[in-house]
């Protein structure tokens, strides 16, 4: 985006304050949703998590192994859980029914395994901490505590 600032100082100041106000509004409105969901992993895998790259390939079961060769243990919430829906839309930029289609195909043709499903965020956090090589997601905004 390009801004056309005029030459006079007063106008300059006015525009600055307008810009910062807009920016403030944007931040205020976008923060809770943009930063609400976050990918987490077992503490031992936190360094590798940064190298993993494409999240959609992990949740779509195309990337199955950590860079060190260990199998990724995927942990998710049920398809109809609001946090799951939000995570899939915000972080993977797809929809829960697309993931379900992929998982069902793997499960019911025997060509792959399903992610482990937990019922709450508390369970998610507990299982992630207990399970080596696991990946899941949590809510940072505290909406689904």
């Amino acid at each position, binding site marked *: 985006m390009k801004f056309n600032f005029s030459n006079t100082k007063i106008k300059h100041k006015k525009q600055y304050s307008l810009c910062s106000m807009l920016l403030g509004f944007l931040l205020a409105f976008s923060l809770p949703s943009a930063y609400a969901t976050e990918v987490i992993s077992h503490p031992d895998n936190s360094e590798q998590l940064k190298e993993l790259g494409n999240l959609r*390939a992990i949740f779509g079961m*195309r990337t199955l*192994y950590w860079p060190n060769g260990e199998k990724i243990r995927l942990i998710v919430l049920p398809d109809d859980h609001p946090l799951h829906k939000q995570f899939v839309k915000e972080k993977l930029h*797809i929809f829960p029914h*697309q993931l379900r*289609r992929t998982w069902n*195909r793997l*499960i019911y*043709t025997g060509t792959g395994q*399903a992610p482990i499903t937990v019922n709450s965020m508390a369970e998610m956090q507990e299982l992630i901490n207990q399970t080596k090589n696991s990946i899941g997601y949590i809510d940072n905004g505290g909406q689904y505590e």
Partner: protein
Amino acid sequence: MNNFSRVILSTLCYLFFFISCSIFAEETEFNTQNTADTNKEFNWSDYKKPWMDDFQVHGFLSQGLFSSSGNNVYGKSKDSVSAGSTELGLNLSYQALNNLSFAVQGLYRRAGEITGSEGEVSLDFAFIDYTFFRHNKGRLGVRGGRVKNPWGLYNETRDVASTHPTIFLPLAYFERSRSLFLSMDGAQFYTDYNTSVGDFSFKFNLGVTNPSDKELLLAVTRNPFSTGSLASDLSFLANLNYDINNGEYIFAISYANLGLKYNNAMPTDPNQNLDIKIDSLMLSAQYNGEKFSLTGEYSLQWNQFNNLYDPAEQKITDSHPVSEHWYIQTGYRVLDNLQFTLRYDSSTQDISDRDGTAFAIRYNHALPNYLGFTKDIVFGARWDITPAWMVRAEYHRVHGTSTLSALDNPDIFNLVEDWNIYALQVAYQF
């Protein structure tokens, strides 16, 4: 009984494999961990846990209710209600090593007269999966045993209700040809390639199918007194799938080359030298948006029936009809768990005789021309009550009778050309 004992025997064999391999895997797990952590105290739960994580059990169950006018579907549904469709599946999968896994699925199925009211048990798939080569952009491997056929968008999971939008699959997957396309005993070579513009996956199945199905034999010979059974020659089926944005757009091409022979026929059977070759091509495209979805599939099938006894002409002939199936289907999600589907579906037995007139003339109009085609308009609603439970209902307005089960409709002279189906289904999956 023979078939059943074979199923049991193979299930046992695979169970044996499961157990021996899991023991092997546990041993290797134990050894590697042991050398790494020699200073640590022994803790059994450390070793038990990884084994359990690599072992999964899943299943599905569905029950349908049908009512129809004019003709029967799944039992005696005409002017009545039939509960003739039940499917129950249970599978086990075990990831023994990073590049070696095992999977087996058993299926119990009732589908009208063909299975009888007591139903049938079958081994749906059972294979060993070995990945030769793997990196973050793809993999290459082989599965050996009984593998599902990746035919079109829905065949691989055709018995799992929740994986397709309507109770009745599109006509291209009609029940009569089920045993032709269901699965293959042999090998599946597979490769995946993931790129920034989408993911490619290719599967190639080589082996024999299990076409010993009365319905298929009756459809080919039109002779209820056939003495033999159909058996498969070496066949293959290939599928190339291109998938953008995790299934937002899917494009696929499937090709099958299937061979059948007629076995164990009495010397008096006019079809004793029958030989069948089927070449089939299917093009598939699908869009899956947040609310809206659009699906279309088109298939052409070149059939070669050699040394087939033609009851109309009362002589042995070769016939080469080309059949065509296509449909277009739209879906709309009013809510995340409530979806409506509308489909127009068409099936033609012989594209050189689309309205079946030539067929009816050959039989001196004893058989109706509308055995040559089926057109179906479907309107359905599906409610996913929870991720596990689903109910759906649909209405079909059907024109033609080519895809009807001859076992459910034994009175072939009194079929009705325009008819309705009302269907309801409840399904569970885990």
